[in-house]
């Protein structure tokens, strides 16, 4: 049963973003604003960096604005102090990534001017960017979203997002389905999924948290993870990736969107988030913490699994 989702607020949001971007660019609050602009195909969008107030009306916000712009801030993090304060257009999910990055000392809050977006949801796939947003085409992450109105931003358009549609939480139900399987069935499932991997590392490039200058998986002395797209190396890469993101991943699901082979990558990340919530009562991306759950400890941690 497909129902359309109300995205009428995006017109008002677009206007508000343009006005605010023009204001902060012309009064010198920021030197540049990272946001979304219309791309060539009808309905599509692409990231843009606007550094001139005259270009502020290029900025848009639609259901096709799927990218997490936090990734541009990490890869360019060394340039941020040089070029002054940067304005960023953030959805609630992107904000959680930024909060995580601030906790890991990759970004400073003072260097950013956050333009929050009241979000009604974005498309799951931009292969057909002009598709209308409905209960089938909405990204699965939006169904589990708890922050439709980003908190703690410098500017949020005065628009109230419509209430989230009451839909089946796809990640939660898929995790429950896999957990109910036997280990052998789960192994068979993941073996098939990972065998599709072509090791393009799009998941790594698009992830705001994969900011290591040299990835462990690129090292060959010693080589811990095979770099060729063969089954054993693929399995190792995805396990390592999930482990390194455990307790850090903010759930923007960019890995899954960027994956050309449609591997359900965010499923692993959501599973780890769920386990860390149960084990250490920790959820990433809500407050700037000095240490994530795996970088700290308490003396009373569970050790029932240790003999």
């Amino acid at each position: 049963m497909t129902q359309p989702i109300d995205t009428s607020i995006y017109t008002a949001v677009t206007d508000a973003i343009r006005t605010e971007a023009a204001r902060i660019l012309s009064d010198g609050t920021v030197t540049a604003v990272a946001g979304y602009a219309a791309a060539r195909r009808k309905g599509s969008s692409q990231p843009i960096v606007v550094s001139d107030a005259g270009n502020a009306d290029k900025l848009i916000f639609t259901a096709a604005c799927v990218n997490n712009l936090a990734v541009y801030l990490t890869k360019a993090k060394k340039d941020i102090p040089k070029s002054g304060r940067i304005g960023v257009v953030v959805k609630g999910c992107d904000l959680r990534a930024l909060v995580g990055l601030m906790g890991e000392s990759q970004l400073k809050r003072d260097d950013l001017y956050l333009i929050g977006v009241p979000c009604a949801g974005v498309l799951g796939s931009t292969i057909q960017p002009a598709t209308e947003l409905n209960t089938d085409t909405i990204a699965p992450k939006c169904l589990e979203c708890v922050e439709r109105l980003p908190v703690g931003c410098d500017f949020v358009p005065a628009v109230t997002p419509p209430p989230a549609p009451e839909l089946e939480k796809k990640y939660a139900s898929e995790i429950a389905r896999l957990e109910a399987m036997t280990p052998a069935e789960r192994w068979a499932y993941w073996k098939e999924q990972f065998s599709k991997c072509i090791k393009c590392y799009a998941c790594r490039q698009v992830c705001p948290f994969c900011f290591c200058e040299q990835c462990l998986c690129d090292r060959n002395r010693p080589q811990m993870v095979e770099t060729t797209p063969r089954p054993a190396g693929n399995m190792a890469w995805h396990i390592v990736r999930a482990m390194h993101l455990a307790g850090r991943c903010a759930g923007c699901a960019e890995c899954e969107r960027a994956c050309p082979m449609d591997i359900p990558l965010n499923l692993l990340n959501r599973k780890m988030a769920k386990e860390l919530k149960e084990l250490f009562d920790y959820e990433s991306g809500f407050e700037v913490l000095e240490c994530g759950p795996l970088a700290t400890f308490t003396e009373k941690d569970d050790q029932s699994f240790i003999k």
Partner: protein
Amino acid sequence: MSTPGTKHDFEPKIIAFVCTWCTYAGADLAGTSRMQYPANVRLLKFPCTGRIDPIFILKAFQQGADGVLVSGCHPGDCHYIAGNFHARRRFAAFRKLLEFVGVDLNRLQFSWVSAAEGGKWVEVVTELTERVRCMGPMLEFKELALEEQWSGKLDSLELQEAYNQIQV
């Protein structure tokens, strides 16, 4: 319980990642006290359990281990104050991940063995070895590695078609 000299059909390979300050010394004590324990276990000495990256466990399985043991100092006894506390959290998360991917957690054992616990070391190693022996060899990762080579069989329509075309 295995008795020395018993022949078994399957001898599992057990890799033990141990910390040098407690468990390695504990294993040493078991040896100097002439206690018997299965020779299936291969010890790898690390400065601390905090040094043991989950990827080592993965690598051990990939290279043919049937079981993996990670052992270090009791909480509070770490030579580096807090290494084993960090390790405890990391492994708690890692075993959940392995379980989700479909690895049987009975093949993976964590333990605290101090330098004075030669007897406990013998007990832990014997129990893990016997458990893994009952489970049989760990085939999952080995099969993955084998799949990297083409079997040589024309087991799909596409392959058969391509093969037919090259015949003159």
